[in-house]
C-alpha cells in the first residue's frame, strides 16, 4: 500500500506465520471482544502495535460505560509460543477500507500471518438451553476444505437483504481474499434475550474451535464455571417469574413469541442478570 497508515509498532513481534484472531467491541453479546480478551488473558498476549483512532472513530467526546470513561482502542497482541496474533478493536465508524487495510498491513508485513479468524454473533430465536452452534463463512474453497474436520456449519447461503449492509467482517474477508490471506468468519447464533448481556456458552463455543484449530491448549475450567453460574441465574429467573418460564418453554418447543413477549423476556433477563453481576 502506498498510503501512510496511522499504525504504531512498539516492538516487532518475533513470529513465524502465525494465525490472527480478530474481535470487535459493540458486537452482539460483546462476543468478539470477550473471546479475544479471554485469549489474551489466558495466553498472556503481549501488546505490540495499535492503530491510531483519529481517522476512524468519532472523537467528539468520550463514551461512559460501567461508570468509566472509554476511549476507542485498536490493539494488536502476540504470543510467540502459540504463533498467535490477537486484534481487539472498537468497530470503526468511518473509513472502513482504510482501517481494514491498516489491520492487514500489520498482519501481512509485520507478522506474516498465514490465516485469519474473525468472531461475530448473530441473533437466534432458540432458547438458551439449546446447544450453541458455530457457523463459518470463508473467503476461499481451500480453507473451507481445511475446516471440514471441525464441527461447524460451512454451507451457509446468504445475500444481504434490501436496506441492510454487509458487515465489517465480510468486508475484511473480501480484502484479505484480494491479498491471498485465507480468512474465516466465525458466527455464533445467540439467544435474542442474551444479546445485550454476555453469553458464556457462545464464548466457549467459538474458543473451543480456536483451541482445537490453533492448538492453544487452553484449560476452560474458569469458563465452564461462568457457564454454570449463568445457567443457574437463568434458572432462577424462570423459577421466580412463571411467565418468563412459559416464554422459554415455548422457545424450547420451537414456538415463536409475540413482539411484546419478546420484549418482556429481554427486559426481565437483562435486569436479572445485571442485578446479579
Amino acid at each position, binding site marked *: 500500500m*502506498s*498510503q501512510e497508515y496511522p499504525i504504531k509498532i512498539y516492538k516487532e513481534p518475533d513470529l513465524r506465520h502465525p494465525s490472527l484472531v480478530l474481535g470487535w467491541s459493540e458486537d452482539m453479546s460483546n462476543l468478539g471482544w470477550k473471546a479475544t480478551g479471554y485469549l489474551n488473558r489466558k495466553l498472556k498476549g503481549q501488546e505490540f502495535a495499535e492503530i491510531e483512532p483519529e481517522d476512524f472513530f*468519532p472523537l467528539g467526546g468520550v463514551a461512559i460505560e460501567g461508570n468509566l470513561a472509554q476511549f476507542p482502542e485498536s490493539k494488536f497482541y502476540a504470543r510467540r509460543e502459540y504463533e498467535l496474533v490477537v486484534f481487539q478493536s472498537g468497530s470503526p*465508524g*468511518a473509513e*472502513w*477500507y*482504510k482501517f481494514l487495510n491498516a489491520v492487514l498491513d500489520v498482519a501481512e508485513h509485520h507478522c506474516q500471518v498465514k490465516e485469519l479468524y474473525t468472531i461475530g454473533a448473530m441473533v437466534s430465536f432458540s432458547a438458551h438451553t439449546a446447544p450453541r452452534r458455530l457457523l*463459518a*463463512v*470463508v*473467503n*476461499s*474453497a481451500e480453507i*473451507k476444505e481445511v475446516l471440514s474436520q471441525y464441527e461447524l*456449519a*460451512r*454451507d*451457509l*447461503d*446468504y*445475500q*444481504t437483504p434490501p436496506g441492510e*449492509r*454487509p*458487515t465489517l467482517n*465480510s*468486508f475484511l*474477508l*473480501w480484502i484479505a*481474499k484480494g491479498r491471498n490471506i485465507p480468512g474465516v*468468519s466465525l458466527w455464533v447464533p445467540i439467544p435474542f434475550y442474551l444479546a445485550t448481556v454476555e453469553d458464556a456458552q457462545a464464548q466457549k463455543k467459538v474458543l473451543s474451535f480456536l483451541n482445537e484449530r490453533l492448538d492453544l491448549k487452553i484449560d476452560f475450567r474458569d469458563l465452564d464455571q461462568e457457564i454454570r453460574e449463568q445457567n443457574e441465574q437463568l434458572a432462577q429467573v424462570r423459577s421466580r417469574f412463571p411467565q418468563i418460564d412459559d416464554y422459554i418453554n415455548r422457545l424450547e418447543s420451537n414456538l415463536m413469541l409475540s413482539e411484546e413477549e419478546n420484549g418482556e423476556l429481554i427486559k426481565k433477563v437483562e435486569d436479572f442478570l445485571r442485578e446479579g453481576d
Partner: protein
Amino acid sequence: MGLRLYQEPQLENPILVAGWPGIGNIGIIAVDTLRGILEAEEFGEIEPWDFLYPNRVLIRKGVLEYLEFPSSKFYFKSMGGKDIIFFVGEEQPTEGGRLYAEGGKAYRMANLVLDVVEKFKCRRIYTSGAAVALTHHTTKPRVWAVPNNESLIPEIRGYGNTVLMSDIEGRGGHGNITGLNGLLLGVAKKRGCEAICLMGEIPVYLQGLPLSYPKASKSVLEVLNHSLKIEVNLDKLDELDQKVERRIEEFYQQIPLEIKGQLDRLKQVTDAQPAEPGPITEEEEKRIMEDVEKFFKKRGGGG
C-alpha cells in the same frame, strides 16, 4: 488510486453531465434517463472502496463469493460536435452518518470527476438535483439554475421555465446546494471549468417521502435539451410520472383538510418574475411551512 478508464474515446469538445441520488432522485433520474436514451457507452469508473461502503454480500455454500459496492461510472456518447460524457453515481460518499456528501471524501471524488473533465477537455459541466419549493404537485416544476461563473447568467436567462436564485422571492440570490451536485460546481470553479447546476422543483410536502419525482426530472431534461441543442423524446418519463402521480395523490388525500386547504393555494404559485408580488404572502408562506412541519412531525418524520 481511484480513477479507472477502460478506454479513451476520441471526443470533440464534450460536456459532462453528472448525477447522484438526492431528494426525489430528480438529478439521477434526469441524467440516467438521458444516458439510457442516447445509449451512451461505459468507459470508466471511480473505484468505490475508498469512498463508499459495500451494499451487498453474496455467500454461497459458506464461501464469500463477492462483495458489491455502489457504482460511480463514466459513459460517453459521440454526437458529432455535441459529444457528452455522463457520470452516474449510485451513492454519494458520506461520513459520520450524514445524508449528503461532504468532507474529504466528497472533495476527493469531485476532483476525480474533474480529472476526467480536464483529460477530455470538457467545455462545461452540468449537475442536477432538487430544489425544495413552495409549489404544488399538479403544477409544472420549474428549474432553478445556479452557474459557477457570471458569464453564464445571460445564457441561463434565455432558457425556458428556468429561474436564477435572484428570481425566487425572498432568496435575494442566495441559497446553498448540498452534496456533490453543489461541491462539483465549486471544485470546477477552482479548477477553471464552467458549470451549471439544474435543480428541478419538488413541493416542500413531498421532500421527505421515499418517492421519485420524475416530473421535475423531465423539466431538467427539457432545459438540458435546449442548452445542448439536442432533441430527445421524453415520453418514458411521462409513463414513470403517471405511476408516481397516483401514489402522490393517495398520500395527498391523507393530509388533513385544513393543511390541504393551505397546500391547494400553492397551485397558484407559477410566476417566476421577481418584481411581482406572489399570490401567497410571506406570512402565509410561513404558516404553510409550519403546518407542513407539524403534519410530518405527527406522522413520524415522513420518511
